[in-house]
């Protein structure tokens, strides 16, 4: 290779490039500068130095890159650094929320806490647990899922596979409207129908009805999108084999999109698990274990958190229990999400 030893000529295709560590160096310098400026000016808030650092990071990337690499690369670096800043902005609250909940929640979270109710424990006393609330949440969310998933999935199948014309448009419109219903309104609706008109008392199942109203549109939307992703060629291949349409949907379309549908359902469950307002109106809450969702007030996790916090005055045993229950709720939803991902990966078309 004779020309390998030649000194590189100036090429129109090759420009000066900054080293790979350059953005990291700029980031470190920006943070240092932000801290220095805050210290010098006596700024107290960490938001202030972080803002200074972010501006320096974006500006520094642009300034140096524009001088060395040229304007196009400089713009590219500005876009990249803005994306990073936005990413950090989004992640910091999340990380801090999880950290705070973990820190405060682990104090009383143990086997005893998960397996005992608040039956004979007053708010200021230590001890007690969330067993009754766990049971309530699991039953209410389970029932709501049982009601919503068939309705939601079948609606989505109608919209994608059969729906033409006016009815389908109307269904789509009302699903959109339902997506926007505030949870308290869903609760009030069931309250007026179930409790005031039909004269039934508070119960877990009344809460599940309200939760279903919130869950159905989410399930319809996500399932609809997943069914639309199934290539039309697969439907035609099946129809051309002389398979009836309903069997094609059942045996070809649904299995192909099962992973996505499951993920959508899990996300919908996660959304309703944290609902407080309808539960407050319809299930009331109790300190005792009630395993029967058909009659009598039940507890649930979000309401447990609310009640414990409201009665704690910001410290003491009830305060710790509120955080521990919040941690349990986050863990429950996270486990659901992980399960959804596992199912999606397991069922994904290979």
């Amino acid at each position, binding site marked *: 290779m004779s020309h390998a030893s030649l000194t590189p000529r100036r090429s129109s295709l090759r420009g000066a490039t900054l080293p790979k560590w350059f953005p990291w160096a700029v980031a470190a310098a920006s943070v240092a500068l932000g801290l220095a400026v805050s210290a010098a000016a006596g700024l107290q808030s960490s938001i202030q130095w972080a803002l200074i650092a972010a501006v320096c990071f974006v500006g520094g990337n642009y300034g140096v890159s524009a001088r060395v690499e040229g304007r196009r690369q400089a713009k590219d670096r500005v876009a990249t650094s803005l994306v990073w800043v936005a990413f950090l902005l989004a992640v910091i609250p999340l990380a801090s929320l999880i950290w705070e909940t973990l820190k405060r929640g682990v104090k009383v979270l143990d086997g005893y806490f998960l397996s005992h109710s608040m039956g004979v424990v007053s708010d200021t006393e230590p001890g007690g647990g969330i067993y009754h609330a766990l049971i309530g949440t699991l039953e209410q969310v389970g029932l709501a899922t049982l009601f919503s998933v068939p309705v939601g999935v079948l609606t989505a199948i109608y919209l994608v596979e059969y729906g033409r014309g006016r009815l389908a448009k109307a269904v789509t419109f009302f699903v959109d409207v339902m997506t926007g219903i505030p949870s308290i309104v869903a609760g009030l609706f069931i309250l007026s129908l179930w409790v005031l008109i039909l004269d039934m008392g508070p119960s877990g199942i009344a809460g599940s009805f309200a939760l279903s109203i919130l869950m159905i549109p989410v399930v319809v939307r996500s399932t609809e999108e997943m069914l639309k992703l199934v290539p039309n060629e697969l439907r035609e291949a099946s129809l*051309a084999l002389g398979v009836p349409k309903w069997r094609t949907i059942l*045996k070809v379309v649904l299995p192909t999109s099962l992973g996505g549908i499951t993920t959508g359902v899990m996300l919908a469950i996660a959304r309703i698990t944290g609902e407080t307002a309808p539960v407050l109106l319809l299930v009331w809450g109790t300190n005792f274990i009630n395993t029967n969702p058909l009659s009598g007030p039940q507890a649930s996790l979000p309401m447990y958190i609310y009640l414990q916090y409201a009665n704690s005055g910001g410290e003491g045993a009830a305060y710790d229990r509120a955080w521990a229950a919040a941690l349990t709720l986050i863990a429950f939803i996270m486990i659901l999400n992980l399960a959804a991902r596992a199912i999606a990966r397991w069922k994904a078309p290979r």
Partner: protein
Amino acid sequence: MAKRIDVSGLNAYYGSFLAIEDISMAVEPHSVTAFIGPSGCGKSTFLRTLNRMHEVTPGGRVEGKVMLDDENLYGAGIDPVAVRREVGMVFQRPNPFPTMSVYDNVAAGLRLNGSHRKAALDDIVEKSLRGANLWNEVKDRLNKPGSGLSGGQQQRLCIARAIAVEPDVLLMDEPCSALDPISTLAIEDLIGELKERFTIVIVTHNMQQAARVSDRTAFFNLAAVGRPGKLIEIDDTERIFSNPSVQATEDYISGRFG
């Protein structure tokens, strides 16, 4: 059991748009008939009217008669699902079911139409895969996903799937257009073998292919974009490619067009 197809006065619409107009032709049993013509002239639409797949497209509708032996596919009380069991179809792009294994793909047509005994199913799957010249390549991985095969193998898998339900007629919509020359050759050889058992209709853009595989060739054309496609002529392949009776056919075949 190959059957004869007799089409008369067939119009096909997409909504209010007339896509193909007044087509009449006969397709003999145990023969290969090729449809050639420029893009958009309605070859595929016409092919899809032969197993009532045209009406699957929203707005698709058909007028006229398609006789399969002595039964009109568009007659009163005819079940399109039953028609599609007798007239199978292979598509342009290989489309094995992604959630199913090689075995399940071939068995799909039978399984989805009702239960079958495992032993009988094994026999049919092997016979169909042998029929599609794919058995030797996949016999060790029948339980692997069908979408893991190469493009040419996938297309032969789709042919195996189509012939597993023992149709009378096999429609092929540009089955080789997404394949390399070697896979194309494999499928062309296969078509030659399959015509012993089925009546075959194939749409192709490749005129050498039409000349190689078909007994009869039909030339479709359209007067202008937006006008309906029409059948210009149908004749023995040899005659179409050597001495067609219509000038437009000769122009198209020799490349003097437009």
